[in-house]
């Protein structure tokens, strides 16, 4: 297979992957974020403390998460058909991808939001804030860097899942690697696909980390009293960081 033959194939595959991952991420974030927050709020001692609701939602999330993606995809076929009108092609893949990613992202959101200091919630309540105000003004903004990291992880996982979706004819890079690379012994094409995936995933991870760290740097990451004297020596933003500071921030991001 020559490069001129491969190029259109790869180009199309790249777009298909981006399309599937893009849409399913959008859906997963739109539904997983509220779900994760509800999990925190309904937990015992939470603002909406409701043990029964928490248990039910938690169970649904666990069941969906424990299901292997390939089984989920097949099991969801009737549902997918009802929504998109097809079970194959990139549209057909978006539904199972999104459904698979929602509980995954929701659990990550739950962990991130739980990290928010309870004192901040109390402070907003003491100002007369409602539960909705707490969510909007405290829980989400305060956990934003961590939420962005969670979204990045979800995108990376979805790229992996989307390759599996290739097996039901969804197209995309994974599909190319299997159909041409594996089944037709086009080893060269397979390695190119692997390289593209590696580059794409690195780029996404880098962008995610960059965004999360950018938010983190805004006055955060310097709360450690030990480092306060270093902070005073430098102008606030865009200042060169000392190695210690940089190290702390990296470890916090991790």
């Amino acid at each position, binding site marked *: 297979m020559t490069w001129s033959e491969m190029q259109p194939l790869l180009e199309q595959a790249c777009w298909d992957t981006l399309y599937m991952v893009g849409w399913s991420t959008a859906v997963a974030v739109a539904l997983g974020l509220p779900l994760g927050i509800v999990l925190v709020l309904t937990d015992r001692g939470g603002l*909406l403390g409701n043990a029964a609701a928490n248990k039910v939602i938690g169970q649904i999330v666990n069941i969906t998460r424990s299901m292997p993606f390939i089984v989920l995809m097949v099991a969801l076929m009737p549902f997918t058909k009802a929504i998109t009108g097809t079970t194959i092609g990139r549209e057909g893949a978006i539904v199972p991808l999104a459904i698979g990613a929602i509980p995954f992202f929701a659990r990550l959101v739950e962990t991130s939001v739980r990290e928010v200091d309870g004192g901040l919630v109390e402070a907003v309540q003491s100002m007369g804030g409602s539960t909705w105000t707490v969510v909007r003004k405290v829980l989400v903004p305060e956990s934003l860097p961590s939420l962005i990291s969670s979204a990045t992880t979800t995108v990376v996982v979805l790229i992996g899942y989307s390759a599996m979706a290739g097996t039901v004819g969804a197209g995309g890079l994974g599909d190319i690697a299997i159909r041409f690379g594996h089944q037709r012994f086009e080893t060269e094409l397979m390695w190119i696909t692997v390289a593209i995936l590696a580059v794409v995933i690195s780029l996404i991870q880098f962008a995610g980390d960059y965004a999360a760290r950018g938010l983190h740097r805004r006055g955060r990451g310097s709360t450690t009293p030990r480092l306060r004297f270093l902070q005073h020596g430098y102008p606030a933003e865009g200042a060169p960081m000392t190695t210690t500071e940089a190290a702390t921030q990296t470890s916090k991001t991790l």
Partner: protein
Amino acid sequence: MITTTGLTKVYRSRGREVTALDGVDLHVKEGEVYGVIGQSGAGKSSLIRCVNLLERPTAGTVTVNGRELTALVGRGARAGKELREARSRIGMVFQHFNLLSSRSVRDNVELPLEILGLSGRERTRKALELLDLVGLSDKAKAYPGQLSGGQKQRVGIARALAGDPKVLLSDEATSALDPETTRSILELLRDLNRRLGLTVLLITHEMDVVKTVCDSAALMENGRIVESGTVSELLATPGSQLATALFPVGGDASGPGRTVVDVTFHGDAATRPVISQLSRTYNIDISILGAAMDTVAGKQVGRMRIELPGPFEENVVPIGFLREQGLQVGIVEPAEPTKPADRATTVKEGAK
């Protein structure tokens, strides 16, 4: 301004019950700084959280600024609209500041104003005004992570004042600060109390806080208020634990057969040379074992532990003389070997 009656809070967890508040009656008058002091676990935090109903009391009532807050509680766990409205008129300052790290100082102060629904321009104007009031107008654009502890607490205070409250609750506001910063924050609270007529209810475990800013104080132990009153009333109460703790005097008798007496001076008596008069009138030698003098609310007060020769029976007349001079006199019984000297029981008999 703040009144609680029979306030009780019981925590239940796994079938076990812990009584944090056991029928607390608190009366904070308008415009005063009221300190509640006690060791950790005494129920101070529960008390202050019950005042704005962050914690829902098991029984009893809370009235703030003529409004019975306990009556505003809905049936569910969430705070209803009326209660939230009432809370927005009660400022609260926290030990760990509780500032949002994702917002700049100005935006932190604007937060309560957002909740109150003010327009953007109004919020900015008010926030800058408040930052000016606490002396931080140059830090408006900084983030909390870039501030020192004292500065953070100033932001916390500015934020608490955003809703133009009549009442400020301070939950160990200075406990995470060093002594120097503590002093400046307390001065700020005192200043706000005078300038804005703000009623301040503060809880603390530091006697110095009570000494520096409080008009009145209460001592909490095991969920109950065991002593309360204005600071000068407390000092005038013989055997008051708070007075003893505010002005600790120590010292053991130098030998058997001597009388140890705690004398509390305040008001007029503090300025008269009572001890030397006593010595001259009765021709006795007096040794001073310990003494503490300070200025509380602009008045000089002090305590002194003195030793008179001979047992109590021989010293009835000189002690009577001290009482005639308007001093509070407590006879210290010889310390038991197991007890440290400063915890020696003071006999509860006072001046008429």
